[in-house]
């Protein structure tokens, strides 16, 4: 329990909580809520990806595949089986985890660029598969009937329920991320990141550790996918498996600092805030992806450790505050 009250965990959780309650105090609560939803969702997704990318050093480029798989599984359970959103969300996470475990057996043997390429391949293959599965709606996907929201007390209540579930999940992801980082398991993952062969010689059971990291990083995007598409009211292959979202998550992680707990939270927030600002500005609205690309380039060239990584290298004292 002592580990719960460390600044390394409290700072990112506090950031999420402050953002989460903002809509309650803002005049236009619905639009603020939507903005915050996107922000907090990005933080949770980036933090999940960080477990395999930042801690373990495996760049999962097509990580959105788990968001899509989970989303489809949950959406299917809600619309075709009439499930409640909560068990459906859990199902989404479970299916994503299971697929990650199976895929991990095959692709986690690859290293470096080969692994990254394989994950893109998986994403495209999964998209093509879903397009051809009639029970998932094929290329047009599935829609949810508006009356579905009645079950939760109407559309307004549904949106708020999804919002608070998202907030809860984001905090949970950060807690998990923190506990992984400060655990023996996490130490093994970081050893793999630095030198996989040396880690193995020191006794880290690398196949097992990598598989667990991959599964853990897939579970939350799976759950989040269900919440997102439930809120959306429809799901289609193009939205569920969009490669450039995956790449945006990587930009968020790199911006905040890969392999840190706070980094993806900070990076996710800053990136989405910037994107929103650009999208609503008359000059930049068509160039927001260009800005993201330039940003990634600048980070990789000049601050490869990201904001938090950079701060952490400044002094050992700061290293204890920012995990």
């Amino acid at each position, binding site marked *: 329990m002592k580990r719960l009250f460390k600044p390394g965990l409290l700072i990112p959780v506090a950031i999420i909580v402050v953002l989460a309650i903002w809509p309650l105090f803002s005049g236009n609560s619905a639009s603020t809520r939507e903005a915050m939803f996107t922000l907090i969702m990005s933080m949770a997704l980036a933090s999940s990806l960080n477990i395999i990318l930042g801690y373990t050093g495996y760049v999962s480029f097509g990580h959105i595949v788990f968001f899509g798989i989970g989303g489809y599984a949950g959406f299917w359970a809600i619309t075709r089986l009439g499930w409640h959103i909560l068990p459906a969300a859990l199902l989404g996470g479970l299916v994503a985890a299971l697929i990650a475990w199976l895929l991990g057996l095959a692709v986690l043997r690859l290293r470096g660029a080969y692994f990254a390429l394989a994950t893109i391949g998986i994403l495209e293959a999964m998209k093509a598969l879903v397009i051809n599965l009639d029970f998932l709606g094929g290329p047009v996907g599935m829609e949810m009937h508006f009356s579905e929201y009645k079950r939760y007390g109407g559309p307004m209540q549904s949106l708020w329920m999804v919002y608070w579930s998202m907030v809860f999940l984001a905090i949970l992801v950060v807690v998990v991320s923190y506990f992984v980082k400060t655990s*023996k398991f996490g*130490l093994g993952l970081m*050893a793999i990141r630095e030198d996989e*062969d*040396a*880690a*193995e010689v020191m*006794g*880290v059971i690398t196949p097992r550790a990598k598989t667990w990291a991959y599964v853990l990083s897939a579970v939350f995007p799976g759950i989040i996918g269900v919440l997102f598409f439930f809120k959306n009211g429809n799901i289609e292959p193009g939205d569920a498996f969009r490669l450039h979202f995956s790449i945006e998550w990587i930009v968020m992680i790199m911006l905040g600092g890969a392999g840190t707990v706070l980094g993806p939270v900070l990076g996710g927030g800053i990136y989405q805030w910037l994107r929103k600002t650009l999208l609503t500005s008359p000059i930049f609205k068509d160039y927001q992806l260009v800005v993201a690309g330039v940003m990634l380039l600048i980070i990789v060239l000049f601050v490869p450790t990201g904001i938090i990584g950079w701060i952490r290298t400044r002094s050992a004292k700061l290293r204890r505050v920012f995990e």
Partner: protein
Amino acid sequence: MKILEVKHVTKRFGGLTAVNDVTFDLEEGEILGLIGPNGAGKTTLFNCINGVYKPTEGQIIFRGKDITGLPTYRSAHLGLSRTHQIVRPLNELTVLENAMVGACYGRENMNLSDARKTAMEVLEFVGMADKAEVLAGVLNVAQKKRLEMARALSAKPYLLLLDEVLAGLNTAEVTAMLDTIRDIREQGVTIIMIEHIMHAVMNLSDRLIVLNYGSLIAEGTPEEVSQNPEVIEAYLGDPDLAARLLEEEKV
């Protein structure tokens, strides 16, 4: 008690036989020196013993258990640790964390707080305690070699494989490292060391084995091995050649 038995181990890479039918035993508490010219197959033999490579033929018995072809993390759990000839620090982790990886995942499978304690003791022992909070990537070569040792020792191994821990060190550092190795033996750890610095390996080892072109060509005490004509030939060429050349000069 025999801690390690290497039986007829052969390792081939395609047409190249890197290790050829090598057989030797190791008693507990011994320091065994493994010498031979460059490319003789010394590191490959280490890799076969700790499971980085699976031997093409032969058997490795460690503390009575057949470990041939087991993954290297399994042999680490059983108490077999090693250092690398080309140092492999975990750059972005601190020196302490590097040693903790060894302790956490080594023979005793410690939890984090025990591992931190053990790692700190070991760093004290190898003289790196003041560097505990430094990132491993910024160390110099001598310090990285000591870090390799600290990592291996944190695992509390029964058998330690040292792959050229003296290479690249200056005279003072070599002397300090030799003392450390003697201290390790005092703690009851059995050691096999690959070394090119002859005076060091002759001094430290209870027994030497010599590899040349993958085959074991001599075995015995340092004195015996240094008198062995085959060994002298392997290192210096034909020992009689100089004498014969002198003879020819006269004529």
